[in-house]
């Protein structure tokens, strides 16, 4: 065996023990007296290098911190499609955030929309959300295909218009009354048209629908008459017009 190989082997075998202090340099040299002159300087140099390792070690926390930094850089360099961006590997906290954030946003949005719909349903002419209420009613009508149900809806909206009219009078919003009367008239006309369609399609269900509209209009007339008695004289004409509209509808029904 060549001397370099022998010394290399000795260094490899004894260096850890020399470093830990479990063996002394002289004790190792005594085991290899023929190589002592060659071995001593090399073992000393190797020992010095092994000790130098500690002065060249990384500072505490460097590996952990720089790993994160490296992974982030790698993530940045990786080309991804939109699907890849959605399913990319995140930390558990990021995953929780990614799932919770849209759910919270959807819930909040649903809450806001629901509140807006409720507020719109309670609105009267002149309120900011009244147009939304009308849009919602038209939408509901557009998605109601059964003539009987459609007729019922028109009757319901006719009652709503009368209630709005009453509220406007009670709130003193007299300038809105002519427009409210027009809308009431439109609903009554639409109800009558819907009733005509029922009579063409199904004669048996026409009678209860007609009776329903009759009751609705009679109630509206009664309600408006009571309102007329308790209202200031300046709105008599408006209320009288609304009563006339309802009475015209009743006459047309007959």
């Amino acid at each position, binding site marked *: 065996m060549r001397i370099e190989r022998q010394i290399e082997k000795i260094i490899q075998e004894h260096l850890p023990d020399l470093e830990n202090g479990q063996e002394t340099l002289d004790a190792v040299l005594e085991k290899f007296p023929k190589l002592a002159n060659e071995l001593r300087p090399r073992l000393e140099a190797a020992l010095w*290098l092994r000790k130098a390792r500690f*002065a060249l070690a*990384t500072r505490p926390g*460097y590996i952990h911190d720089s790993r994160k930094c490296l992974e982030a850089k790698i993530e940045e360099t990786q080309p991804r499609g939109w699907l890849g961006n959605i399913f990319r590997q995140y930390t558990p906290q990021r995953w929780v955030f990614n799932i919770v954030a849209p759910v919270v946003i959807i819930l909040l949005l649903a809450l806001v929309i629901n509140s807006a719909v409720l507020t719109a349903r309670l609105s009267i002419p002149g309120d900011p959300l009244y147009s939304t209420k009308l849009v919602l009613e038209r939408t509901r009508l557009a998605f109601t295909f059964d003539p009987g149900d459609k007729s019922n809806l028109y009757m319901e909206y006719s009652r709503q218009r009368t209630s709005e009219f009453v509220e406007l009078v009670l709130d003193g919003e007299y300038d809105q009354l002519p427009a409210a009367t027009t809308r009431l008239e439109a609903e009554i006309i639409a109800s009558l048209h819907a009733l005509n369609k029922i009579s063409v399609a199904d004669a048996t269900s026409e009678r209860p629908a007609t009776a329903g509209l009759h009751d609705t209009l009679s109630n509206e007339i009664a309600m408006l008459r009571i309102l007329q008695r308790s209202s200031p004289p300046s709105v008599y004409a408006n209320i009288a017009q609304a009563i006339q509209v309802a009475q015209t509808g009743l006459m047309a029904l007959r």
Partner: protein
Amino acid sequence: MPARQDNDRELIRRAQRGDPHAFGDLYVTHAPAIFRYLFAQLGNCMDAEDLTGEVFLKAWQSLPKYMERGVPFLAFLFRIAHNTLVDHFRQNNRLEQQAPDEMDGYHEDGTPEPVDTVGKLLEHQKILGVLSKLRPDYQSVLTLRFISELSPEETARVMKRSVGAIRVLQHRALAALRDELDEKQ
């Protein structure tokens, strides 16, 4: 070492499929050795940290092309580290790099750093002072073998020499180092 290579193999496979966390695990395993190799030849810790990051980023970019074929991953990394170091020295004046940092031992505001940090800096400068007096191939073999703790086979692959040639080089380099230490004392 075979256990380490097996573990590396699995992590490399995952990293090649684009898993940055697997590459992060490889980084944790091998970065300390790469850092020591670079720090033993550079004037300051910051440069060694920057270059360590650069080495692994280059390794990540070259990973799709990496096929083991008898070259262990550690040797692959050290080759990149060696080339990065050469580039660094080319871009900066090597002598300037190896001169002791005038600020070492003091913060930028002039206040002294903790005693252990100062001690470590002085020790580093001493190591750098001794190693820089050796031939570049002696420096490389000693750093790879005793500071980065590579086996003779791995060192041979990094330095692109036979294992026998590495043994001879190490034998001479250790003697030269001992002489240099005597001269310093």
